[in-house]
């Protein structure tokens, strides 16, 4: 599970603990064994999980993925949708915006604090220069930053109890998502190739040969960085 997702789960659990009567539902799309990642969220304290697992969804880009996730979320009709800011693999930080767009809901990203009251969310949004305080009516989509909280880790009872919580694995068909909307057929982008970034020609490697510190210092002096 992405670290950012655990921040989102933690934020949801804190809201539930404060509000009482509500439910935290985990939603994901992936292969069958992705349920193991969701189980960690259940062990943290979420109430149930829904995983969309379908060979027809394999290879989905952001267009296909948002088609599927929006279908699940339309079915669930949550008051609040929380995302981690970005995934640990591709660091895209766009999925929440695309899902919000599909659902035609307000979206706030980079949330470092979150309060709910009187049918609206109040979010402190971290920027390069400080904070914005933004309000949005519910339902809305919020992507939380890793600074919003320190995620709890699952207790033994949580781990043991997670198995007994509802864990649904659903197909595209059950969601009413057509084959042309997901997977490679539902995608609008194609990855042609992946390459390492080009090497920087001007880099120097200074190895620890006993005089490395002096050479680093000389280099910094030369660049007037000391």
């Amino acid at each position, binding site marked *: 599970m992405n670290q950012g997702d655990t921040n989102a789960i933690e934020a949801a659990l804190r809201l539930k603990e404060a509000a009482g009567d509500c439910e935290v539902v985990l939603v994901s799309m992936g292969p069958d064994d992705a349920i193991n990642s969701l189980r960690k969220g259940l062990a943290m304290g979420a109430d149930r999980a829904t995983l969309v697992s379908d060979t027809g969804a394999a290879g989905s880009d952001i267009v296909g993925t948002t088609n599927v996730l929006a279908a699940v979320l339309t079915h669930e009709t949550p008051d609040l949708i929380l995302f981690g800011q970005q995934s640990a693999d591709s660091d895209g930080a766009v999925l929440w915006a695309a899902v919000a767009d599909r659902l035609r809901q307000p979206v706030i990203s980079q949330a470092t604090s979150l309060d709910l009251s009187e049918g609206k969310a109040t979010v402190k949004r971290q920027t390069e220069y400080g904070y914005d305080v933004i309000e949005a009516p519910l339902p809305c989509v919020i992507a939380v930053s890793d600074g919003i909280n320190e995620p709890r*880790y*699952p*207790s*033994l009872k*949580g*781990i043991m109890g997670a198995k007994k919580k509802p864990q649904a694995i659903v197909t595209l068909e059950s969601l009413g998502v057509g084959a042309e909307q997901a997977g490679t057929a539902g995608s609008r982008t194609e990855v042609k190739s992946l390459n390492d970034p080009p090497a920087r020609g001007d880099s120097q490697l200074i190895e620890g040969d006993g005089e490395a510190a002096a050479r680093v210092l000389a280099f910094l002096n030369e660049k007037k960085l000391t």
Partner: protein
Amino acid sequence: MDFTIPEELDEIRAGVRELCDRFPGEYWRELEPDRYPEEFVKALTNDGWLSALIPEEYGGPGLTITAASVIMEEINASGCNSGACHAQMYTMGTILRHGSDEQKERLLPKIAAGELRLQAFGVTEPTAGSDTTQIQTTATPTDGGYLIQGQKIWTSRALHSDLMLLLARTTPADQVEKKTLGLSTFIVDMKQALEAGNMTIRPIKTLMNHATTEIFLDDVFVPTENLVGDEGKGFRYILDGMNAERVLIAAECIGDGTWFIDKAAAYASEREVFGRPIGANQGIQFPIAEAHTAIEAANLMRYKAAWLFEQGLPCGAEANMAKYLGAEASWQAANACLDTHGGFGFAEEYDVERKFRETRLYKVAPVSNNLILAYVGQHVLGMPRSY
């Protein structure tokens, strides 16, 4: 024969590892030489890991001994030290198996919730050592209970425990049919005894940070409701708990061994001398591989002992052999790791020397490996008693 590791164990392992990651080497180094890892034990307690063996009806998760041993293994494999708290997991077993319903209902839910710490086990005495039937501490009947008089030594975690399980002689040795009779097990409220001035606890400085003590008992009053089971049968009750303890200790050794092997293999592959990684030399590589092989063999015996225990089958030999193999293998791995690191192994910041000191204990406690050999020789192989 199915060697598949149940998924549940992987989840437990991951959960323990996640907690332990918050207590890195720096944390343990700062505790040296003798500060108790309160924060670590509190985290384990709050998240329920130490109540693993308490049945669900008393508020625990009711895990198997295999699962409980995985918790201990993973603590040590992550670089932490379960010696600070392992007894909280298994000492309550004596109450669970032999205590009255009233005792179980009174104590186990509080132990499961972490409200009561029962992690002191007063058996060994200065003049008795492993010869438990020769203990001199006595419990004399008085109005409403017993008065305990005597001395215990190597009672670990006594300063960090609310209750102590204590063995005392209730019938003099010369008045019993067998010397194993006439001993009784009591639950001692340590806080109360300390406040009443009848108990003194003195820490003993040791090779490693282990919070062990000697305890002086001067007419400590224990009410009748804190006698466990029948008077005079306490020795059997204590022995009954040994198999579970042996399996858990074996797992701790395996955890230590895993830590040493991982650390040694990584360093042997990274550290370059004479223009190549030192692990390319058989003199470095083979001791690590040998130690790994020994750890794996010990691990098989640990799982076998745990399986027998869970089936309710006799497992004394296997549990003891698992502890023996684990302690020998972790010590072998410790030496391979220290040798691999050369001078750096002696530097505190590598944690090798700390783990080295910690794992040495397992060859001596809670039972000496030589006594296990004596047990195997006499009770498994039928040879004459050797001690």
